[in-house]
């Protein structure tokens, strides 16, 4: 009887372990699949952007800031026009919950002073969405280096930016918001 109980216990523990392993494996597979799909959508955006950029004067160093700002503006307008039907989540897709989790964990790891310093220069009411441009007069929140190390790598022309409770995917040279994850940080964090 004693041996039978022992065997049942071992079997139960083994089953739990197998289910736990399968669950972890599934989660890993789901993350990998989401990541792969996200990369493909980013590449899709980059292809579209490449085509639009080709139709504009090539970017090069110049002493005339008007040429730089005109190109930035025209590129942003052309991208927003080509993606006029784009909506929140089109690029992030099912990476969204993964990103929310990464951001929430990162936020928890920061001291109150760190959190305050992060959004120090951003007006509390600022909310941005897809196809808008980032306001020229408002400083960009520096993307925390430790957080960046955990987020999926982007092509050089794209960047992540935090604004209040939103994670933006921003086109660096077109100054246009490509996508947004809403509610990535707890309420009260702006």
């Amino acid at each position, binding site marked *: 009887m004693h041996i039978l109980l022992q065997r049942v216990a071992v079997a139960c523990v083994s089953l739990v372990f197998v289910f736990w392993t399968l669950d972890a494996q599934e989660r890993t597979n789901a993350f990998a699949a989401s990541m792969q799909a996200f990369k493909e959508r980013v590449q899709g955006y980059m292809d579209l952007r490449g085509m639009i950029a080709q139709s504009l004067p090539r*970017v*090069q*160093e*110049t*002493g*005339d*800031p*008007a040429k*730089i*700002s005109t190109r*930035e503006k025209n590129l942003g307008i052309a991208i927003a026009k080509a993606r006029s039907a784009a909506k929140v989540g089109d690029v992030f897709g099912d990476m969204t919950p993964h990103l929310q989790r990464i951001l929430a964990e990162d936020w928890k790891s920061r001291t109150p*002073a*760190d959190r305050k*310093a992060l959004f*120090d*220069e951003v007006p509390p009411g600022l909310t941005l969405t897809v196809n808008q441009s980032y306001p*020229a*007069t408002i*400083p*960009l*929140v*520096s*993307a*925390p*280096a*430790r*957080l*960046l*190390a955990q987020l999926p*790598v*982007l092509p*050089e022309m794209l*960047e992540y930016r935090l604004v209040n409770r939103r994670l933006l995917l921003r086109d*660096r*040279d077109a*100054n246009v918001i490509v996508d947004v994850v809403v509610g990535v940080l707890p309420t009260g964090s702006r």
Partner: protein
Amino acid sequence: MKTRIHNAVLALGLVLAVLMPGTAPSPTMQPPVLAQAQARAPAAAANEATPPVEEDSVRLAIIGDSGTGTRSQFEVGAQMARARQRFPFEFVIMLGDNIYGSERPQDFAQKFEKPYEPLLTAKVPFYASLGNHDDPTQRYYKPFNMDGERFYAFTKGNARFFALDSNYMDQAQLKWLETELSRSNDRWKVAYFHHPLYSSGGRHGSETDLRALVEPLFIKYGVDVVFAGHEHFYERIKPQKGIYYFIAGGSAKLRRGDLRRGPLTAAGLDTDYTFMLAELGKDVMRFQALTRAGRLVDTGALPLQPEPKRQDDAQSRAR
């Protein structure tokens, strides 16, 4: 009567010293750290830049958080031009927040070209890094000499300069930095960027996130000096793990009373606008921090620290 006049003159002097910092230096009115720093300065150099000491040294000026287009920026710009007559620096490095607010063509004129016109006319090149108030497209603005890159490196004499984008320290930049640092055999390695790894600022403070990623590389590859801005004051940090750190973010903006002098502070000033001059010699870096009125805030000579490679070389020679 004589005593009364004396007292009145003294009182007037004190009022002037409080109302017009930089114009009426008075040892009794200075903050303790400033007084301490000046005590180290040569007496003859108390009110303006001192000439360079070594013949083949690399001479530069350093400004941070400069792009306001306000009177303070113009005053610092004018003082830099005056300082250059005694200390002929070859170039200027910019620690970010190069253009505050809107970035229309007229802003580039008002917030960069006009304040530094005498230097630009004298063909003194500026090498910018990006701050959180800067649109990254500034890297295409030719007078900033960024070669179209957010982060880049250049060599002057015996020194290699690494201009980083501390707003966005992604994997690509870290990889680039490690490669560039590992390739550099230059005598001096100088890194500069916007956010300070060490700071006694009350509003921002040290950027510990950034520090965790870049400091190990600085140590591993022997970076000697780091300049940063972001904090609107001047601070010289006590050497950290063999590296000299400076904050020079008060070249047009000022956050009075924000410098919380503490264990990190070697010297500092948060009551007037400042810029720096530096001379990288064979074995010593000499530096000066000056106000817009040309008053010396801090000065010193810092020896080149032994870097890992030099230690290895010395060990192999000894063997």
